[in-house]
């Protein structure tokens, strides 16, 4: 049971009618890491999470958490897994404390231990001041933090969060991310975060998986993915030089391996299949240009995401995929 991989899916597939929401997903998540599941809306992230919790049955394949089959042994899984849904809901006419107490009772925690436990959790998420307010008056950020406390009541080993940062203000977001980070580093929890907000996730994740149209198209640490992109010959260089004249542009246009140049203000954004930095700086140095700004993109998630996403779009028949996803949305609403 002391497997280093705490979450494992094997060929996990979920089909709704004609739409494949999750397509042969094989994923492994290490104990104690923060894993980001990234992808656009409707990519199948939520469906995957539901299968982890045994809330929907996979069409094919299986998911395991700590060795328990998520479909057949969902009780054991739910005992060690905390789930923070997007837009977490609380009973609005109960106070935060009462909501937590209810969860504690559902988890069969002895009455005597409930109140001290709740107090310490409220302290941890910084919600002590609002504990006795009705949750109907809470802001989104407060609900989200109470949600974390709610998840922690059962002292889970794995915490799964679905779009947790959606709708938080910048400060709330920062606090929230710090909290998540702390849960991982101090308490050793394994955390799976699904999101389409790349920047935030980038700050805290140890590894990410990029999910498009039900398939995992890339998986690994952020720097690892960055070098993967570089290896495929995708470079994006931002460069600003003075004077910003046509001679410079003319030079850039003649360089080998250029895929495209766009001008944003005084900055050229060059996408290429080779690393051009040394060539360009040599040119600038010998021709009396002043280099104002140069930045090689590729190391950040935005870029990684864009590249992978574009590749996936090109591969799949675009029109079909869009139609399918739309139908799927309507289908869900209709039920």
């Amino acid at each position, binding site marked *: 049971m002391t497997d280093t991989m705490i979450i494992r899916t094997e060929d996990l597939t979920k089909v709704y009618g004609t739409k494949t929401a999750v397509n042969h997903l094989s994923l492994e998540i290490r104990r104690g890491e923060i894993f980001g599941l990234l992808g656009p809306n409707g990519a199948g992230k939520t469906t995957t999470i*539901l299968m982890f*919790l045994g809330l929907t049955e996979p069409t094919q394949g299986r998911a395991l958490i*700590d060795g328990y089959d998520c479909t057949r042994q969902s009780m*054991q899984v739910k005992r060690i897994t905390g789930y923070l849904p997007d837009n977490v*809901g609380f009973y609005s006419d109960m106070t935060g404390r009462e909501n937590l107490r209810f969860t504690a*009772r*559902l988890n069969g925690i002895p009455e005597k231990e409930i109140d001290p436990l709740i107090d310490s959790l409220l302290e941890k998420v910084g919600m002590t001041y609002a504990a006795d307010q009705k949750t109907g008056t809470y802001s989104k950020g407060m609900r989200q933090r109470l949600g974390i406390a709610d998840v922690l009541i*059962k*002292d889970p080993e794995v915490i799964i969060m679905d779009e947790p940062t959606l709708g938080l203000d910048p400060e709330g977001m920062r606090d929230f991310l710090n909290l998540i980070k702390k849960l991982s580093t101090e308490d050793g929890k394994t955390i799976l975060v699904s999101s389409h907000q790349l920047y935030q996730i980038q700050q805290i994740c140890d590894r990410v998986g990029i999910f498009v149209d039900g398939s995992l198209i890339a998986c690994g640490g952020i720097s690892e993915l960055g070098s993967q992109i570089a290896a495929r010959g995708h470079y994006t260089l931002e460069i600003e030089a003075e004077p910003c004249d046509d001679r410079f542009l003319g030079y850039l246009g003649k360089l080998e391996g250029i895929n495209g140049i766009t001008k944003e203000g005084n900055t050229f954004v060059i996408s290429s299949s080779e690393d051009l930095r040394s060539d360009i700086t040599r040119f600038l140095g010998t021709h009396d240009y002043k280099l104002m700004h140069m930045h090689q993109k590729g190391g950040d998630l935005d870029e990684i995401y864009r590249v992978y996403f574009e590749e996936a779009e090109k591969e799949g028949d675009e029109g079909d995929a869009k139609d399918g996803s739309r139908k799927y949305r309507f289908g869900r609403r209709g039920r």
Partner: protein
Amino acid sequence: MQKTAAGSTVSAAEEDKRRNIRYHSLTALYRKEMADHVTSKRFIIILLLVIAMTIASVYGAVTGITSAVKNAAIDPKASFDASYMFLKLYTTGGGSIPSYMSLIALIGPFIGLILGFDSINAEKNSGTLNRLVSQPIYRDSIIIGKFLASMTLIAVMVLSTGIAVGCAGFLTSGIKPTGEEIVRVLIFLIYTVIYICFWLAMALLFSVFTRHAATSALASIALWLFFAIFMSLLAGILANAAYPVNTEYEQAFNSLNNYNLNLNLNRISPYYLYSEAASVLMNPATRAINAVSYTQLVGALSSYLSLGQSLLLVWPHLVGLLALTFAAFTISYVGFMRQEIRGN
């Protein structure tokens, strides 16, 4: 704390936990549902409605009985049957006020509907159900807990108002109940609880399968209207179509069949089923509920039915009501268990 340690004690402890968890979660859910209902505004509204109904019906019954007794004293032709007076507190209306029995047949369903119509879909929409199902509880605890909590409230409401009617009637009119009358009233109240639970189960069913609370409220009210009003019309139309009784010739052949078909169609409706059972229980003079031929009546003594015989008459009604309730609950149960619960 729930880490699985290796060793032989695990399976025993696990098994123990499994048994406990159902108990824990069901109790917690049940308590929460009860607290929710009791503190909600809507519960206060039903409570006021039921109290008003009780007071009105006691008042109606007492005035109705008093005027009947007075009439009998003045007018020798107006006979007044003084036996089973206590039951008359429940079955007699006065002036324009209906009796307790007919009022609860009409208003009772509302109690069930109001307690149940948004029990699942409202939680789904507010995202609490999502959180609930990710707890280590069996999913059926949720729907069972909801049903049991509402059922308890219904039982408390019906029994307390039913007993209140008896007490108030006893205090104001001095009519003393006999043992048999008390038993009849209690059985009648139990029928009432089951009848209202049918409506609770219906409301729960709609709340499982509809997305918005308003839709399920409207659907359950529509169903209630159908059974309370249109079912008898429909039964009449169908019976007449199947066995026309327009000419004397047709009447001679079809009357009995027409009547039977009409009656049986009506009995599909829980409203009719309940009303029939209630009238048999509360009026021991009712000797039969089906068509009776002249030959069957030859030599029959005009007396009251004993309690046992009355129960024999309404036994199928109890089974029918229970079956309808269970059917509605089972469908919602299965539907709920198979549903995929997502955030919104």
